[in-house]
Each structure stands twice: as structure tokens, then as C-alpha cells.
């Protein structure tokens, strides 16, 4: 495997072609839909996708017919565009691991999926806060950080030998309280309309919290990296017993599928827990009064207030719950990564990317966005031929997704409205 593409001309030629038609499509179709007095909200995005996927044919068809631009177009064109890029890449660099090595691809996809689930879960907290308060919490990464730190301190320093579950629950509890107290102390002036620009106020206030928390932990804990030991060991499994290859094989710290894809225990446990908590959260939101009240507030504050829901309490609950979700993600990952006061920055950035991609305020969007971002990072790290640079660019992959989303479709995949939120007002 070389460091560079074997035939870069093919790959870059195709990319250039796609970008050129994409730009053309996005501009042309927006104008066309505008001129015909049709709904333009999706025109640039679908236009770009059609140009990228089918070139002049796609743009031409849409131009001529101007159909209603539904999600189906997005899906079809999106898949074609991705396949096209993949094909161009495969032709340009046939020896690349991403093309030639099946088990490598399977491993990367699994990795992307697992880490994507965890980050999607974390982003869920951010989007929950946004949907109720209209605030992008810049302290999300710090909640993640204190979650991990607390688990370490509870299980290894304060009460050695205590069950990890107690550590995780303790971390969640502290984060929940911290979120609630912060919301009461700092965010309440936003709701009364006293502040002329609540969105910016919210960003700055959470920013201040992030700053304070990070340096507080650094001052108290210092800088030595810590890590919690594995929460649980896998039991020894060989299943099915006489198959070759074995479908599932485990050791204490590892799970191997079909003897090609290996998943480390901490990540597996974290992803499974995230899915379980997500289900619990869905239950809370859809089956309990509090959850229904939360959703009601996020959809229409005034109506909710008339129905007897106190939006103020919902604001507090949403912020505390959102912070707790981030802390839980951290609490689960502290057994996989070394923990420092600065660890929050990267996952926070990734959460921003995910919520914008999924659509600010959309819960399913956040989860799907998380998985997509997981895949993009896995593809970027795994497939870029230049080994020197592939990993150095990890922080940028997500940001490129963010930039593209904001340019082409600011509402994200599932965004309900293109607005800056309600700022928790009303009631």
C-alpha cells in the first residue's frame, strides 16, 4: 500500500466533476424553484445532491420537472453520490485497505458504528437542551468530563471497591444537580425577555460554566491522566461451538465476531448501555406525563403553558437531563480512554457537528447523526492513503461535515424549523 493514490487523476477528476455539478445544481435549482414560486427550503440541498450524483442528467431532470423535493430524493441521490465516490476511490487506489481488505472494512464499520452510537447518545443531551431552551450548551464537553472524573474518583479514590454501577449513578446524580443549579442561577433571566439577545447570552453563560469547570477540575485534580478499570468482564463464550469461523468469541476484555471484527469490552458495554438508556429515555418522553410535558413544551410553549405545564420547571429539567446524558457518556467511556480535565473539548465539538447534521432539536436526528459522523470519521481515518495525515485530520472530518451541512441544509436531516429556538420563553 503506497502513501499516495495510485492514480489520483481518476479520483480527483470524479470529485471535481461532482463538486462542479453540485454547486451548479444547488444554485440553479434554487433559482428555478424560486422563479416558479415553489418551496425553496430544500432546493439547494437536493440540487447539490442531484448534481453530485447524476451530473447534468440529475440537475436537468429536476430543472425540467420541478417535483416536490421530498426526503426520497435526498436518500436516493445521497446514496448514489456516496457510491460514486466509493467507486472512484476503488478505481483510483485498488490496493487500499478500504477496497481490498474485507475484514478491515468490517472492523472500521463496526468501530464507526459503536463510537457513533456513544457520541450520538451524547449529542442527544445537547439537542434535548436546545429543543426546550433554544440554547446550544457550550458546557456539554465539561459535563462529559466530570462524568468520567466522578466515576474514577468514586470507584478508585473515595470508595475503593464499590460497584462501578454506583459510580455511574453517582456521576449522573451530581451532573443532574449541577445542571439544575446552573440553570436556576444563570439561565433564568433568559426566559423573562429581559435580555435582548437570549441565544448569545445562553452561549456565553454555558461557555463561562465550561471554562470554570475545566479549570476547577484541573486545579483540584491536577493533570495526571486517570482511568477507571473495566466495569465488567465478559464471560467466556464460544458460539456456535463447532463452527469455523466461530461467530462469537469472547475473552475477558474483548469480543470477536466471525474472527475478524474485534470489539473491546469497554466500548461494547458503553454502546449497549447507551442503547438501553436511550430506550428508557424514549419511554420517559413518550409514556410519562413529565416526558409528554417536555415534548409539548418543545413543540409549542404557549399551548403547553395553557395546558397547565410549567415551562420553567421543564427548562430546568431539560438542562439537567441534557447535562446528565453527557456525564453518562463520559462515565461509560472513562473505562476506555485516559481521562484529563481537557478531554471534553473533542467530544463537545463532535456533538455540535452531530446535532447540526441531525437538525438542532431533533432527537432521532441526533442519534442518526452520531452514527453518520462515526462512519465519516472511520472512513476518513481508515481510507486516506497518506498514513501521516489520515490521523492528524481526525478533528477536521466532523467539522467538514458541519460546514457542508450548514451551507447546504442548515436545518439538518431532521430539522423541524429553521430558527434560532424559543429561548425558553413563555408561560
Amino acid at each position: 500500500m503506497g502513501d499516495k493514490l495510485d492514480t489520483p487523476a481518476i479520483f480527483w477528476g470524479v470529485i471535481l466533476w461532482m463538486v462542479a455539478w453540485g454547486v451548479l445544481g444547488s444554485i440553479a435549482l434554487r433559482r428555478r424553484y424560486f422563479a416558479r414560486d415553489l418551496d425553496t427550503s430544500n432546493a439547494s440541498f437536493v440540487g447539490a445532491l442531484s448534481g453530485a450524483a447524476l451530473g447534468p442528467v440529475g440537475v436537468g431532470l429536476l430543472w425540467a420537472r420541478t417535483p416536490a423535493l421530498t426526503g426520497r430524493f435526498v436518500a436516493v441521490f445521497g446514496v448514489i453520490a456516496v457510491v460514486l465516490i466509493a467507486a472512484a476511490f476503488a478505481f483510483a487506489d485498488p490496493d487500499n485497505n478500504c477496497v481490498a481488505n474485507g475484514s478491515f472494512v468490517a472492523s472500521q464499520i463496526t468501530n464507526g458504528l459503536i463510537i457513533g452510537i456513544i457520541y450520538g447518545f451524547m449529542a442527544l443531551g445537547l439537542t434535548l437542551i436546545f429543543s426546550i431552551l433554544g440554547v446550544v450548551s457550550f458546557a456539554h464537553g465539561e459535563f462529559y468530563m466530570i462524568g468520567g472524573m466522578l466515576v474514577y474518583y468514586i470507584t478508585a479514590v473515595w470508595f475503593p471497591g464499590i460497584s462501578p454501577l454506583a459510580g455511574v449513578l453517582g456521576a449522573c446524580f451530581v451532573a443532574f444537580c449541577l445542571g439544575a443549579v446552573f440553570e436556576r442561577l444563570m439561565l433564568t433571566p433568559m426566559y423573562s425577555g429581559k435580555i435582548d439577545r437570549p441565544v448569545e447570552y445562553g452561549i456565553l453563560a454555558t461557555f463561562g460554566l465550561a471554562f470554570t469547570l475545566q479549570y476547577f477540575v484541573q486545579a483540584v485534580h491536577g493533570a495526571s491522566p486517570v482511568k477507571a478499570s473495566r466495569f465488567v468482564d465478559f464471560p467466556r463464550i464460544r458460539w456456535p461451538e463447532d463452527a469455523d469461523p466461530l461467530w462469537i468469541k469472547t475473552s475477558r476484555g474483548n469480543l470477536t465476531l466471525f474472527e475478524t471484527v474485534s470489539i473491546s469490552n469497554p466500548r461494547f458495554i458503553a454502546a449497549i448501555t447507551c442503547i438501553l438508556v436511550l430506550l428508557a429515555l424514549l419511554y420517559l418522553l413518550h409514556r410519562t406525563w413529565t416526558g409528554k410535558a417536555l415534548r409539548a413544551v418543545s413543540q409549542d410553549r404557549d399551548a403547553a403553558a395553557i395546558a397547565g405545564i410549567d415551562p420553567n420547571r421543564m427548562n430546568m429539567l431539560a438542562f439537567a437531563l441534557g447535562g446528565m446524558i453527557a456525564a453518562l457518556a463520559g462515565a461509560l467511556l472513562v473505562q476506555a480512554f485516559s481521562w484529563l480535565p481537557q478531554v471534553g473539548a473533542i467530544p463537545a465539538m463532535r456533538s455540535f457537528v452531530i446535532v447540526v447534521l441531525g437538525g438542532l432539536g431533533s432527537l432521532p436526528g441526533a442519534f442518526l447523526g452520531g452514527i453518520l459522523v462515526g462512519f465519516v470519521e472511520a472512513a476518513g481515518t481508515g481510507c486516506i492513503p497518506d498514513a501521516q495525515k489520515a490521523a492528524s485530520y481526525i478533528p477536521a472530518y466532523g467539522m467538514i461535515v458541519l460546514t457542508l451541512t450548514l451551507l447546504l441544509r442548515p436545518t439538518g436531516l431532521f430539522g423541524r424549523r429553521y430558527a434560532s429556538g424559543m429561548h425558553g420563553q413563555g408561560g
Partner: protein
Amino acid sequence: MKHIPNLAGLLLLAFFAAFPLVYQGANYDYVMHVLITAFFYAILASSWSMLAGYAGQFSFGHMAFMGIGAYGTALFCHYFYITAEPTGFCTEFPFFGRYFVIVNAIGVTSTTLDQDCLRQAMAVWDGSVKVTPMPVALGIVLGTLAGGLAGLLVGLLVLRLRAAYLALFTLGFSEIVKAVISAEIDITRGQAGLELPALFERGVTVFGTSFERTDKIPPYYAMLGLLVLCLALLTWLARSRFGLFVRALREDQDAAAALGVNTTRYKVYVFSITTAMAAAAGAVQAHYVQIVTPNMLFLLQMSLVVAMAVIGGVENFVAAALGAIFLQILLETLRTSFTIGGIEVDMTVWRLVFFGLLLMITLRFFRNGLIAPLIDWFRRAGVAEETVAKRKEAAS
């Protein structure tokens, strides 16, 4: 009373102008250094407050433009040289009887690895051929232009974005810039940083007094001058029709558009002007510090600028600049540790905790910052006095 803020401003300016000539402490150079850095942050904070406070464009990418300015001049000074003879190793063009040399990019190396083409040639020449670096001033101008141009492009891209989306987009832009600089080691030398010539590489002579390149007085006045220039430009802009339109943009974009203000045009203008200021500050600071690294694009640096502007008063760029100067000095002096009741408080870490708390308290209870209300208070007191005087006149 009304003129107190203006008078105080003039006095302060006179104080900073005279300070290097009067101050005598043994820690002279260190104090100078703190002040130069304070002015640097003041430019960033005031231009950011114009962008965020005045125009309502809440950008988190201000440091990225600063970085573009700094790297613009750094790359320019690092890769282009004029030599008297052809090197024979590098890409070069005849240039008015001399040679314009483009040094090859080799990234970070040590003495046991290959050196770049110009250094190979210079080793052969052994000092017999004159090698002229590019003028620093040209580099700074180019860096500023690069920053302004990037600001123009980003300004065009973010036209449709508001509030939280704008903040996230600019944050993303800033991260991409940082990642590119860190990863393209061959060209930018990554984390190792690019070294630059000093602001006044061969020293300067003013009024018969010569200053060496390590002297702090020339960069001090350069940075102070740039700050005053930026503040003057911002004041002029704010008082002109431009300022009115920009304010209208903040208050209500749709209403401004309905009244016939070309909102997009003003948005892009204000973006490129303020980012060019950030870039200029970055370029001058880079030549002063003589090294640029991608770590200056750390989110922490951006948060410092934001916090400084907020604590000063985000809607008043003079207050933001003062806030920056004040806080930079405070942060430096707070580095000394102290002991309360037998517990030693290591201020190198705790000072940032206090800083964060100050930021939150200011936000919560002093919405216009700590300095802007003072200025306003004096102005308003002046107005009140005038009214009273007028009424008296009318009565008599």
C-alpha cells in the same frame, strides 16, 4: 460631566504613550511584554465586539482569522527570499538583476536529516552571497489582506445563518484551520511552529535614538499604534451611516431589509473589516513573538477574547478594548501563589477558575459589562446636567 469619558480616554492614551519613557522598574521588559500582549488582545476584543456586539454576528472564529494573518506573513517570510546569485538548488526566477528564491518545503527536521535548498546553498556560499529576506511590513500587509479576504469569503457563506448556527459554523471553520495547520507539517511545520523575523529585524532609529531588534519600545508603539488605529476606524464606522445600518442589522434583520438596507452587503463588510483587524493584530504579534504555532488557535484563546469583551462590555468596543487590557494585566499579576490559612493556593491554575467565575457573574448581573456602564453613566449624567441647566434657563 459629559466629556469625562473622552477626557479619561485621552488621559489613558497619554499614559500609555508616555509609559515606556517614564517607567523605570527592573522588570521593565516584562512589563512591556505584558502591555504589548494586552494591546494585542485589545485589538481582538474590540474588533470582535464590533462584530458580535454591534452587528450581532456572534462569531467564534475570530482567532482563526488572527491565525490566518499570522501564518500569512509567516509563510511569506519563510519561503521567499531574494539572493544575489542563483542557488542552483531552489525554484528561482531572475528578479531585477537578482534572484527571487522559493524555498522548498521540508517540514520539521533535525541536523541529521536533509536541510532546505536555501540552507544547502548558503552552506556552499559560506556567507559570500547576500541573501535578503522579504520585508516584514509587506508580510504584515499581505497577512492582513489574507485575513480580510478569508473574512469576506466566510461572511458570504454565513449570510443565511443566524445566532447559534453562526456560532457553530465559525467554530467549525476555526477548527478546520487549526487542523490543516497542524497536519500540513511539510509546509507549516505543524506544532513545531514557524519562526519569523523580528518586527524590526535590523533595529530602528527614531530621533537619533537607535533601538535594537530585541528592544521592546518599537513593538510597543507599533502595537499601540495599531490599536489606536483600529479603535479610530471602528469609531468612525460606528458614527457613520455604516454604523447605523450595522446596528439596524443587529436589532432586526428583516426590518432593516424592509427599510431598504442591503443587509447582506453590510454583513459581509463588517465581517471582512473586523477580521482584517484580527489578522493585522495576529501578523504584528507573530513578528513580535517571532514564532507562530497552531496552538494559538486553541479554543481557550478564543474564550479569552470573548470573556475580555464581555467583561469590558460587549456592545462598546472601547470598553471591550479596556476590558482586554485590564484583564490581561490582571491575569499576569495573578500568577503569584499565596497562602490562606495554611493552604497554599497555586494561582497558576486557580486564576483561570476565578476568571471563569468573574465571567459568569458579569454576565448574570452586569449585562453590559463592567466598563461600558461607567462610560454610559458619565455620559448620561452629562446629559442630565444639561437638561437641568436648560430648564433653569427656560424658567428664568
